[in-house]
């Protein structure tokens, strides 16, 4: 009996069925279509795990205790939990739908200390945090996961092309309009009454336009953790779709002649410049934007380990074992935010819709900026490399190269696009720092 009443089939809700289907869809996209599989395989799988009925893998001890106590009328547990959560309830009182709602709201609005107390009480009664909740709090709640990934990305990034032509950094700046344009879009939806977005939520949604996975996860975990699932899925999905999203926009904004512009070969960059560059970025962060310090600090640290040549052991581990381990748990943790009652919401649709706007706006602004720069610089700049400013490393640079080759089969833009591409990573980390500074 317990086995049957406790089974998934008996307790399955429609939302969970839908979310499991979405999880399977993400796995399909990742495995068959090659959509950012390193992240979407763990996210999709984590999403399925988070929606297993009665398993409560993504819930805190307190939430699990409330769920089971409400189900089995264990009023004593409910009464004990009611106190720290500030719910009006005495042991023995009847369990009404209003009460369920009251607990739900209370959990959502509880302060850090109250929640900690409620969890301790739940653990006294033998309930525990779900596995995915533990992963989430260690990896994302502490912000360590995205930062370690960013360190690994730093250790994999070669700033050579950027150093050879630093002015392409401006393309990486322009493309960040994708972020702030989307914030504006979200605020507009809110103003028009179509969807509700607080300014914090709007900023978190906007970061999708940064086209950078760890930055998106970091910012949304700080500004709007309840939207993290939708934002991360949206960011990675659109990053995978960059080869579909960008080319039409790039072609619409450029003439055949512009696309055929050949750029002069990049100068060689010395080892020493590469070693000093991450320190230059770090000093700029120190002086101008301390709130970008965690993200850009770890990024520069990874890059310094890569370039300095004396800590290859560490650089190697940062690029392999460490980033892989973190990716596995980061993905599962993001998946834990794909729970039906939090994900199946009009906001999610809005986020998916705004996400593609973000990419399109960022691409367009990058291209337009490149056209503008082309007027003022001595050496010609092919406007196609502007689109790479959104980051989505290295996909966006490859798209620039491909579109360039279509216009002129002798035109190899890959290296030239790599400059704005990695500048886009810095640009979105800076934008992230600004938003965190101004809003939190």
């Amino acid at each position, binding site marked *: 009996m317990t086995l049957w009443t406790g089974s998934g089939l008996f307790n399955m809700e429609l939302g969970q069925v839908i979310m499991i289907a979405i999880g399977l869809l993400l796995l399909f996209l990742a495995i068959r279509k090659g959509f950012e599989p390193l992240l979407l395989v763990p996210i999709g799988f984590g999403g399925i795990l988070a929606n297993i009925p009665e398993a409560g893998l993504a819930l805190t001890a307190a939430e699990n205790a409330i769920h089971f106590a409400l189900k089995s009328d264990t009023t004593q547990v409910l009464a004990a939990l009611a106190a720290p959560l500030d719910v009006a309830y005495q042991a023995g009182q009847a369990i009404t739908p209003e009460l369920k709602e009251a607990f739900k709201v209370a959990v959502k609005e509880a302060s850090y200390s109250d929640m900690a107390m409620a969890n301790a009480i739940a653990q006294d009664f033998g309930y525990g945090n779900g596995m995915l909740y533990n992963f989430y709090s260690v990896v994302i709640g502490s912000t360590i996961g995205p930062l370690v990934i960013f360190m690994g990305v730093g250790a994999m990034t070669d700033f050579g092309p950027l*150093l050879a032509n630093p002015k392409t950094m401006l393309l990486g700046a322009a493309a*960040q309009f994708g972020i*702030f344009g989307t914030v504006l879009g979200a605020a507009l939806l809110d103003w028009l009454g179509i969807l509700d977005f607080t300014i914090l939520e709007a900023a978190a949604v906007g970061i999708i336009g940064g086209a950078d996975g760890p930055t998106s996860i970091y910012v949304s975990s700080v500004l709007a953790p309840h939207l993290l699932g939708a934002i991360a899925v949206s960011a990675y999905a659109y990053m995978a779709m960059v080869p579909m999203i960008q080319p039409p926009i790039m072609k619409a904004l450029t003439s055949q002649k512009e696309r055929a512009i050949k750029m002069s070969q990049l100068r060689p960059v010395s080892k020493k410049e590469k070693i000093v*560059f991450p320190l230059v970025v770090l000093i700029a962060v120190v002086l101008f934007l301390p709130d970008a310090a965690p993200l850009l600090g770890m990024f520069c640290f990874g890059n310094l380990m890569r370039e300095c040549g004396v800590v290859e052991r560490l650089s*190697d581990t940062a690029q392999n074992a460490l980033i892989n381990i973190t990716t596995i748990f980061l993905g599962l943790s993001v998946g834990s935010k794909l729970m039906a009652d939090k994900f199946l919401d009009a906001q999610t649709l809005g986020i998916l819709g705004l996400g593609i706007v973000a990419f399109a706006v960022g691409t367009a602004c990058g291209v337009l900026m490149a056209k503008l720069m082309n007027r003022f610089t001595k050496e010609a700049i092919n406007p196609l490399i502007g689109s790479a400013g959104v980051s989505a490393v290295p996909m966006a640079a490859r798209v620039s190269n491909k579109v360039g080759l279509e216009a002129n089969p002798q035109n190899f833009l890959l290296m030239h696009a790599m400059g704005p591409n990695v500048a886009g990573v810095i640009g979105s980390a800076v934008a992230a720092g600004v938003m965190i500074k101004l809003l939190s």
Partner: protein
Amino acid sequence: MSQAIDLMVAGMGFVFVFLIILVFATLLMSKLVHRFGPPEPVAPARTPRARPSAPSSVDPDTAEAIKKAIAQYRSRHKK
């Protein structure tokens, strides 16, 4: 809404200011490195975010060579 506009103005402004400063700082840095640094052999630009040439891994050329070696070895030493 006005908050979002403020955020956009401040944000884009700051992003541009920051990266423009960085452009100049980088140009300055490169100049200083070239002036004061002793000449050194220069590495050509590589593809970013490429797989590291991990010391413990075998590069494609080697792999190919090894494959040939194995093929030869096997054909000679049929068990």
